């Protein structure tokens, strides 16, 4: 039922007088119909595990990972390569982190069933960590039984935003010297001419005594994670999987290897 307030507001609709009827002869329609219908949809690229064994190990290690409906969304931009990426992240202060996370999704969606019978549950997400490497910002999101990550380019007024989320994930809080992976894999949005190339990322939780986390790429390059408020995250360009263990530095200065899973 519409209220007088809503009726009054409807008179302020900025598109109320806009006319744009569709015709079968519109050139814009012809352009859409000329596109390859079976080309990979830019909005649904595949996120696949970088090292499935590590993820399986995570489940066994206490993460009830029921990654239901992991989705990845992106735009049809034409970004360049990750030339400005750095193996060491740049610290992002709290205010800057809020701004950088502003383009990221605020909720994950769990869809059960199909079509009109589908039941959709929205789980609010909050940014828990933000880091910058060159022109790119990576944000970890978490909610009640849901996690997500978000990748934002610094493309001026209209940055590209890529995000994924998984509902049904309870990330165990590790002990003081522990590390738990919440998400790991290669997100590829390299389909078509908009190819930017894949990125591989890992994020999760760390205990109170973890001061730093470093992971080697399979090509040997060391990547330093951002560690903040009990969370850690790192990413690198390409499909090169990370090693199956991380080098963890504790607050007492000692160093140890911890399985990434």
């Amino acid at each position, binding site marked *: 039922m*519409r*209220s007088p*307030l*809503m009726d*009054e*507001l*409807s*008179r*302020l*609709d*900025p*598109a*109320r007088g*806009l*006319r*744009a*009827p*569709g*015709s*079968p002869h*519109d050139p*814009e*329609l012809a*352009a*859409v*119909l000329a*596109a390859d*219908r*079976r*080309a990979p*949809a830019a*909005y649904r690229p595949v996120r696949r595990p970088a090292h499935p064994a590590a993820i399986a190990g995570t489940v066994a290690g206490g993460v009830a990972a029921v990654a239901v409906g992991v989705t990845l*969304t*992106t*735009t*049809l931009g034409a970004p360049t390569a990750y030339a400005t990426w750095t193996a060491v992240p740049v610290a992002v202060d709290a*205010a800057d982190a*809020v*701004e950088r996370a*502003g*383009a990221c*999704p*605020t*909720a994950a*969606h769990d*869809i059960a069933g199909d*079509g*009109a019978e589908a*039941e*959709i*549950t*929205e789980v609010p997400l909050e940014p828990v960590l933000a880091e910058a490497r060159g022109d790119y910002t990576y944000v970890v999101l978490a909610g009640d039984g849901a996690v997500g990550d978000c990748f*934002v380019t610094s*493309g001026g*007024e*209209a*940055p*590209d*935003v890529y*995000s994924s989320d998984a509902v049904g994930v309870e990330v165990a809080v590790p002990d003081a010297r522990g590390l738990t992976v919440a998400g790991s894999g290669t997100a590829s949005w390299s389909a078509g001419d908009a190819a930017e190339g894949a990125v591989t990322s890992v994020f999760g939780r760390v205990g109170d005594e973890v001061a730093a986390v470093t992971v080697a790429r399979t090509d040997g390059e060391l990547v330093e994670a951002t560690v903040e408020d009990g969370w850690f995250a790192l990413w690198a360009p390409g499909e090169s999987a990370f090693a199956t263990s991380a080098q963890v530095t504790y607050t007492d200065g000692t160093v140890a290897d911890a399985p990434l899973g």
Partner: protein
Amino acid sequence: MDDAEARTVLTRLWVDHREEVVRFVARRAEPEHVDDVVSETFLVAWRRVDEVPTEARPWLYGVARNVLATQGRTHGRWRALGVRLGQEPATASEGVDEVVTERTDLRRAWELLGDADREVIALVAWDGLTNIEAAQVLGCRASTFAVRLNRARKRLLAFSEVPSGTADKLRRLQQEAP
């Protein structure tokens, strides 16, 4: 679905819904981006034509919203929307002082609303959706949407009753907030 059938379905979607999708996008995007977002929305429909439900409008709006969101214009678009709302002139036939005053209050209240409140209200007041359809666009339960809409309405009403001087101070504080 074969290509000929897919073309027929997509063409029917375009003819039936293009204007609605253009309006939906125009309420949320800068004018120079509207055509691109609409084309991208129908490109998704073309590639997922087998999935388009019989009641296509909420589905198309949901796709358009996703296109808008993934383009990262979330913040600028609503700010722009507020500006355009403020510039909307009162029609001559309604040029009674009281009506103009009420509408000015409503514009001011709209500018004080948060993004989420504006979105749920716009889906009903401007996009003309039912609660069930709007929930489909946002990907939430209809009951959840109804609660959000009710809260947003209450805030809009409350803000519309805020004295103009206080509203201006609130708006300045919001603009100064990080």
